[in-house]
């Protein structure tokens, strides 16, 4: 027993180079798996952190609880934390388009949501209030602790008879603290102001008091099950349950399976096992004679198998920990160098799970890889291996392959030999080509993701350039002159000007021309609403809608929102052709339908009502989302017109919003001052700066790119490693053949050419399959992703295919350099004597 295991070590020691290569292969593979694991975990952790920062540390909320229910919830063993929220109402100021809600929060909720103070303290006594910093600036309230001001607030509610009502009141508040801005608040023009729960109790009539509980489930329990359990035990309506979906999605508490990720990991695993398999296969092939000798002196096949598995085990013991370490260092370097603040992953999370998984996967990969070569080795018959020619005969092919005469004239006889040699050991070639093909597939798929997820496009989804100037409500608009003066500011690259009206534009419909879902929604949600005082007109219902007027530039960039129909800018300019945005419920309109609107016209100077008119619009396309976020929407759908048509129909010259992009490397401050000057021409105007958000997104974009590139490099390395291995072995096994070729007068140059062509053919075959499969997989991925990522567009990845072809051919040729050195320095006589 001990003796033949000893042989294993002797072999490992003797074949230092081969052993080193094997170790390197396993290390690389394990490092790859570990890095993917660490990346995944870190990104998940980062995303959870981000959602926690953004939305707060709660799993869900139950609305409208009484004190008894709250205390049950608080005492529940499966609930760790409960925070209470009671809304007081909204504060509106005539000169501003902001939405400001005043709410009473308890200390728990403040901690759970993660609000923090910049100055002062949290509200405690009656009528104490804490505001966000940007709001103070926006409303020009003196940021002094102790500052007193009177605010009107209102609250809509449903009374006992089921009717909507509005409660209005006012109170004097004392500023006791200033808190950090909530993320995204500024961009949407909504702000939160906090008072104590007692303040709300004192200021609102008892009937309007409403307590909502935010809760965090104890970590040991399933979030979903606990939620259901709590809901049924407290008998809470579905309407009053809200779940922190963003958080649950990331925590994986939803049932969705992440196919793309599984697919990615599968590819990596296959590539890894392929690489390790290749190494062992080669190492066995090289030792066929040795195994024959062992067999002839009485070693049983089982013993030989055991010997090889022992070998694999020892190699794993050394290389797997090193691989994990390398993977850790690699991901740590990447993550810590790429993210400084506020990033997808700002911490390297190494869980026990990742280490265990990588180890097991590595070990399994080694054992799966050894299985077949070990069987092969144990099957070597003693006579066969002792016979001088066995190794060569075994390598011989019995099949002729087609070699076109055209190729013959191109590559000559050396080319033919090179091509035929590819198929000498089919299995080994297939493994090599397979691993290279995987590299190609990964490259194409990742480049596809990279290019189709056009990051500038995504950037546009959230942002609209560098700055926005907007006025949401009221009659006031920025003038054409304002647009001109913005355009004239030095360093401005592009201004998208948007016209908007959120009232006095009513969709007319009757029960027959909308679907039943829409009708139900309209009757139950809208007709009951207190502000909804629209009467029927000419027997048709009226529904207030948002109407936008986009310029050519904006219209040409909203393709990604288009669900049906098309955006024919030229026709939209001249004809009453509109894009229809489905807001809450889809009325069931189709492209080509004609819909009527009742338009109220106002005087653009003094804002006085002039008259109503009816118009008819044809639906040219249907959008799935509002391309430009104006913050507040009316209850009805959105309509997008060309700005010229908007002007004709609504008789509005001015603009409600400018999205401004600036030239890079321009002093921002100067521009900002000028833009703020223009913004302030209208009292309710808001100026928004996206610098921070944009930087963050750009950084994320860079990070993803670097991650993708490093993944491709590692996979490429494994592929390269495989091909070097294969070609080296192919050459070692054919040593005598080369000697013979040299004897019959092949020159070194011809020999090199032949071997290089061999490498090149590996590249060509791999590129061929890689391109086809990579394209197909990209397409599948596109189909999978299309639903969620509407920005994805299908383009045949010609450039990556070209890259793959060039890349693999270069890799194939490069891979022959090392083995070629060996052959060239080989002595003819020695190689002929080799087997004798």
């Amino acid at each position, binding site marked *: 027993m001990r003796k033949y295991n000893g042989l294993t070590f002797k072999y490992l020691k003797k074949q230092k180079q081969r052993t080193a290569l094997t170790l390197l292969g396993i290390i690389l593979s394990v490092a790859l798996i570990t890095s993917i694991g660490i990346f995944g975990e870190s990104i998940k952790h980062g995303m959870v952190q981000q959602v926690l920062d953004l939305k707060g540390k709660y799993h869900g909320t139950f609305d409208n609880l009484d004190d008894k229910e709250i205390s049950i919830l608080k005492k529940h063993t499966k609930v760790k934390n409960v925070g209470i929220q009671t809304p007081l109402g909204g504060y509106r100021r005539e000169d501003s388009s902001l939405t400001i809600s005043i709410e009473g929060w308890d200390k728990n909720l403040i901690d759970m949501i993660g609000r923090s103070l910049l100055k002062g303290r949290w509200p405690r006594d009656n009528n104490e209030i804490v505001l966000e910093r940007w709001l103070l600036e926006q409303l020009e309230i003196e940021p002094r602790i102790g500052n007193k001001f009177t605010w009107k607030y209102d609250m809509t509610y449903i009374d006992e008879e089921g009717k909507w009502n509005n409660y209005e009141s006012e109170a004097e508040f004392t500023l006791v603290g200033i808190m950090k801005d909530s993320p995204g608040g500024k961009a949407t023009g909504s702000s939160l102001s906090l008072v104590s729960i007692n303040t709300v109790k004192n200021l609102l009539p008892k009937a309007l008091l409403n307590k909502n509980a935010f809760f965090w489930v104890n970590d040991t329990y399933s979030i979903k099950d606990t939620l259901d359990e709590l809901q049924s035990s407290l008998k809470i309506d579905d309407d009053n349950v809200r779940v922190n979906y963003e958080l649950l999605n990331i925590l994986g508490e939803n049932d969705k399976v992440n196919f793309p990720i599984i697919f990615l990991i599968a590819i990596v695993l296959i590539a890894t096992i392929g690489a390790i398999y290749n190494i062992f296969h080669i190492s066995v092939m090289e030792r066929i004679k040795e195994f024959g000798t062992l067999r002839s002196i009485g070693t049983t096949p089982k013993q030989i198998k055991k010997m090889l598995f022992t070998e694999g085990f020892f190699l794993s013991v050394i290389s797997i920990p090193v691989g994990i370490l390398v993977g850790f260092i690699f991901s740590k370097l990447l993550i810590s160098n790429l993210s400084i603040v506020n990033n997808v992953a700002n911490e390297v999370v190494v869980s026990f799970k990742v280490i265990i998984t990588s180890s097991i996967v590595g070990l399994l990969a080694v054992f799966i890889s050894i299985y077949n070569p070990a069987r092969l080795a144990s099957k070597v018959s003693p006579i066969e291996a002792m016979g*001088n*020619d066995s190794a*060569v*005969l075994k*390598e*011989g*092919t*019995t*099949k*002729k392959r087609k070699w076109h005469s055209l190729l013959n004239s191109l590559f*000559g*006889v*050396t080319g*033919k*030999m090179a091509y*035929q*040699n590819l*198929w*000498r050991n089919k299995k080994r070639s297939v493994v090599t080509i397979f691993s290279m093909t995987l590299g190609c597939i990964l490259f194409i798929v990742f480049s596809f993701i990279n290019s189709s997820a056009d990051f500038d496009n995504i950037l546009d989804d959230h942002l609209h350039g560098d700055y926005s100037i907007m006025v949401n409500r009221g009659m006031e608009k920025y003038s054409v002159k304002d647009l001109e003066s913005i355009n004239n500011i030095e360093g401005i690259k592009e201004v998208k000007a948007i016209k908007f009206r959120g009232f006095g534009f009513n969709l007319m419909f009757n029960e027959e021309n909308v679907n039943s879902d829409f009708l139900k929604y309209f009757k139950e949600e809208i007709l009951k609403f207190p502000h909804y005082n629209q009467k029927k007109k000419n027997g048709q219902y009226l529904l207030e809608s948002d109407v936008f007027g986009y310029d050519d530039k904006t219209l040409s960039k909203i393709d990604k929102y288009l669900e049906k129909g098309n955006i024919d800018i030229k026709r939209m300019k001249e004809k009453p052709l509109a894009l229809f945005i489905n807001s809450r419920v889809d009325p069931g309109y189709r492209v080509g339908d004609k819909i009527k609107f009742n338009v109220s016209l106002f005087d653009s100077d003094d804002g006085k009502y002039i008259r109503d008119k009816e118009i008819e619009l044809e639906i040219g396309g249907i959008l799935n989302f509002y391309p430009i976020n104006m913050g507040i929407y009316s209850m009805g759908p959105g309509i997008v017109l060309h700005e010229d048509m908007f002007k004709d129909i609504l008789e509005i010259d001015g603009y409600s919003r400018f999205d401004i992009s600036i030239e890079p490397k321009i002093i921002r401050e100067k521009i900002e001052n000028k833009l703020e000057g223009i913004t302030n021409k209208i009292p309710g105007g808001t100026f928004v700066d996206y610098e921070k958000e944009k930087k963050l997104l750009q950084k994320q974009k860079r990070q993803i790119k670097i991650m993708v590139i490093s993944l491709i490099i590692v996979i490429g390395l494994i592929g390269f490693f495989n091909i070097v291995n294969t070609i080296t072995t192919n050459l070692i096994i054919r040593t*005598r*053949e080369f*000697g*013979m*070729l*040299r*004897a*019959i*007068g*092949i*020159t*070194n*140059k*011809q020999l090199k050419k032949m071997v290089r062509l061999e490498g090149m053919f590996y590249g060509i075959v791999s590129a061929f399959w890689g391109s086809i499969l990579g394209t197909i997989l990209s397409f599948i991925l596109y189909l999978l992703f299309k639903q969620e990522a509407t920005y994805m567009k299908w383009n045949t990845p010609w450039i990556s295919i070209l890259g793959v072809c060039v890349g693999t051919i270069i890799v194939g040729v490069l891979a022959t350099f090392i083995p070629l050195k060996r052959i060239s320095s080989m*002595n*003819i*006589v020695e190689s*002929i*004597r080799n*087997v*004798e």
Partner: protein
Amino acid sequence: MDILKSENLSKTYGSGEISVDALKNVDFTVKEGEFVAVVGSSGSGKSTLLHLLGGLDRPTNGKVLINDRDIYTLKERDLSIFRRREIGFIFQFYNLVPVLTAKENITLPLLLDGRIIDNDYIDELLSTLKIKDRKEHLPSALSGGQQQRVAIARALATKPSIIFADEPTGNLDSKISSEVLDLLRISIKKYHQTLVMITHDEEVAKTADRIVTLEDGKIISNEVVVK
């Protein structure tokens, strides 16, 4: 006329204590059209001599002249080209390229040289060696004797002036080996070629024009065979 001549040819493998003097100052000549058999016990230096004469290895000392040209003054590339044009080798293990057919193996030296193949000559060779019906087969589909005949055809394909054979029938049974040797001799005569052949078979050696016996790296006898 001497086609092949070695002067003071020596070969030492390794250096220092473990060095082996495989060949010691061998002077040796072969006339054009002659068939020389080289015999000697195992390890006496026969293969070493053959390799040096054929320009496969470099001698430690001495010269090899073929047609009065010192082959070891040639550059590696020129030596390769010289080899494929002027010299044919036949080894004990046929060393055919397994991915090429019999015919392709035979014409390989010509193809490497970029020469136009004289199909009539190749066909004639194939028939002389009785492997015409096997020309499209891969080596793995040929018997040992057939493979060796392919190797002989390959050595003859370029119409070399000298053929070196190292125990060409060492791997074949006696019946087949005499058949192969007969074919080899017929070909040599037909194309007026010179043959230097190592053999350990007395009977085979006797069919040669001259027998050279090596021992311990030296020629100990050089006798013309009286027929």
